């Protein structure tokens, strides 16, 4: 059974839950088998990378964290009163009466059940009153494991429809925000939309009642005044669904791995990993990676994989554009040998070899001091 194999790969520790950020990042490098296997098995990639000597470069500044918390608290103050005003504007609806439910009112262990009960009741009611559900604890099945999602969103119901509201502290200045940040927020929001849709469906309601338009709330200009924007996340949803389906199919990948393979860190009683590093590196190395420079902002394993790609002399290091220009030739030495004519093209490489030979000649000619 694939699940048993995945458990064996992880070792005797509980699978690491994925937060929305991690799930959103699943879609970032869909071609990478290593990542698919590590994530499907619920392996703690951060600790793994650290133990391998390649800690992920994802530090967060205290200032940024504080700023995010302050802004969120401000938006949600007084039962989301400020948020309501924004929703009226952005949805263009007169929203009468508003109720506020905090799913975190109960203990952590009950939160998921409590969220289910609240959403079920909400889906049955179809009055016109707007209702906020703060801190809903949603879940998503990933390759056989249930992942609980960090509750940093608010679900909003109006009539029979739900919207996901995501509060972010990056600024929108004169109607524009940093595109990379908006894209990341949209990917994350899509995870919540999907999780809420699955929940609504499980409860026997129409999943289409969860809108694909999420509401992004950010500070405007240089002040802390929040502004809301509707963001269509259909594209992100499609990518996410595809990737999740792929992870269900991770069984094929796993069954091809050597038996007895494990990425267990062999933590001692104090939780300190004792697995010999070289052995762990070798084990990880058995699952093929597909490094790209973009991994550096999306995957904890990035510095390890980059180092590996470098040792292998892989053209992946230089980015997809370069790889594309090289017609997919995988090795730096191989591509250079084709360019310099010290190696004949293999079948199917004739075209790229010709182009590289030409490029090599043109470069040499253009760099000659006297042309």
């Amino acid at each position: 059974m694939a699940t048993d194999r995945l458990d064996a790969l992880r070792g005797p520790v509980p699978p690491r839950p994925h937060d929305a950020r991690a799930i959103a990042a699943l879609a970032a490098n869909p071609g990478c088998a290593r990542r698919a296997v590590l994530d499907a098995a619920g392996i703690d990639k951060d600790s793994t990378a650290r133990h391998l000597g390649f800690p992920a470069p994802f530090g967060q500044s205290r200032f940024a964290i504080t700023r995010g918390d302050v802004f969120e608290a401000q938006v949600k103050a007084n039962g989301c009163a400020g948020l309501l005003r924004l929703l009226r504007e952005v949805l263009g609806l007169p929203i009468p009466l508003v109720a506020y439910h905090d799913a975190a009112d109960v203990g952590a262990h009950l939160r998921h059940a409590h969220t289910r009960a609240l959403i079920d009741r909400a889906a049955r009611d179809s009055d016109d009153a707007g209702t906020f559900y703060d801190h809903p604890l949603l879940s998503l099945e990933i390759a056989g494991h249930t992942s609980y999602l960090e509750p940093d969103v608010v679900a909003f119901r109006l009539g029979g429809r739900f919207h996901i509201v995501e509060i972010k502290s990056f600024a929108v200045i004169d109607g524009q925000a940093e595109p990379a940040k908006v894209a990341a927020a949209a990917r994350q929001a899509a995870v919540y939309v999907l999780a809420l849709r699955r929940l609504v469906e499980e409860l026997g309601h129409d999943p289409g009642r969860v809108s694909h338009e999420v509401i992004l709330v950010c500070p405007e200009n240089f002040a802390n005044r929040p502004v809301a924007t509707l963001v269509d996340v259909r594209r992100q949803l499609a990518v996410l669904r595809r990737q999740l389906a792929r992870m269900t199919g991770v069984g094929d990948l796993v069954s091809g791995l050597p038996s007895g393979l494990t990425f267990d860190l062999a933590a001692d009683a104090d939780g300190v990993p004792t697995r010999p590093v070289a052995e762990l590196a070798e084990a990880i190395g058995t699952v093929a990676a597909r490094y790209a420079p973009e991994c550096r902002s999306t995957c904890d394993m990035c510095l390890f994989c980059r180092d590996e790609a470098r040792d292998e002399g892989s053209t992946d290091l230089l980015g997809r554009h370069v790889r594309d220009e090289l017609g997919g030739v995988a090795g730096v030495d191989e591509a250079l040998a084709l360019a310099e004519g010290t190696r004949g093209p293999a079948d199917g490489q004739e075209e790229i070899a010709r182009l590289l030979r030409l490029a090599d000649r043109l470069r040499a000619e253009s760099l000659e001091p006297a042309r």
Partner: protein
Amino acid sequence: MSALTALARLRAVREGRAQPAATVRHCHIAEAPMVFIPLRMAGEAAAPLAAMIGTDPGSPRLLVVPQPRDRDLRFAFAAELAEVLLPYVEGFAKETETATRRGAEPYERCLSAPQVLVPNGQAAAFTGLLGRSTRFRRAEGPYPVHPSVPVLGRWLTFFAERAAYPGSSLLVSATDALALHWTSGQSGLEDANLAALLGWIDPPPGLTGLRAAQEAEDPLLWPPAGPATDPGFDNEVLAPAIEGYTRAPTARAVERVREAVRTQLEPTWRLVWRAAELLRGLPAGASVTRRWEYDRGAFTEFLGRVAEGGPPQARRDGAVAAASRLARMERARVSFDVQRAYDDPLIMAEYRLTGEAFAGEVIAADPEHTEGEGRSRKLRPLVTIRTVDPVRLAAGTAVGTPDRRGQEAELVATDGGEITLKITKGMGRGKTPSPGAVPAVGERVCYTSLTDDFQASASLPDPDLTPWTHGGPPEEWVPDDADAAEHWE
């Protein structure tokens, strides 16, 4: 990205050192540029934390906001920045020349112009944000600031806008400029790290480019070039220092914050100057002077606008202004690309690769060839060139050559690797071509279909005639008290 640059990256990997991406310099580098390295408070859109600035590598000026959340301290920072930047900028107003333009009145143009050098593209963008957050302020009214602050805002906005303009050198980002001239053995994403990119281009003795770039990624050895600071530094060093200031805003507390940010800025300060030195070491491309002339013109014009007390730049362009700005940028992009190709054989090689240019040896020439009879008889010298380049130009295509600028020719026939051209312009007016106008047999020449004739600017309606479908005529932006009072928290 092309097979040529891909190849350069591969070579850089193998050699352990960056490879040339240009044989001449394509940007202007001033004798005494003003280096400006701003730092921002993490989590905030435009809260300045500090800046290192100056025109003398040996004596940078360090500006610090000991509590970046304090509005008054931010404006004090802006006023201090103005104190450094404005005299530098205004210094260029003194010397002018009379310039002429086709179809327009002669005008006075400054002999030189300011140049601001920032470490990277984010610093250029942050410069724009600082401009945006200061240009609408007022010296009178309900929330007065120092009179220099709104002027500073206009200039910062001006510089940031020019930075988006292809070929302009008024605000130069060091990483962008370096990457235009050298190709590293790492990815383009990693090239945004100034220390790493310089590591490839100019590794310290005994280190390969790769080693140097690896060291550059350690924030303890090479703090990030900003505007974002290293989170480890924020948490361990900066936060306690700022808290100290908040508890007791003494001179000592300020000094502690200053010393903390100084450690983060000094390494980058040296790197930016090193970048300027490396760029200056390349011979200037033939069109650099001309582009700098445009920059001087743009600067002079804006100087006049500020002197007249014109309004600050609008928050957003109206529809027509936005379209004409786009069209201008597009033209600038095309002409920057073409000029670089004419100035630099290594750039021209990109077009030879795609068949839009070719180089080869002249194998036959008929300098006195003519066309037509009697009065309409015209001199049309013929030249045949042998090339091994994969030419993709059809007969009838107009071509130009970097070897004889201003000359025009037309492709007459291609026969395998032999291409015959007739020269149509720029060979003299006599019955025979002026000496040297027609390449002689044996000469190596290069021709291309790229031309840099500015197409007349796409005819866009006057701003006053903006169709109502595009929002009607834009209102001139007159900042009011609300703008001046806009929060900067």
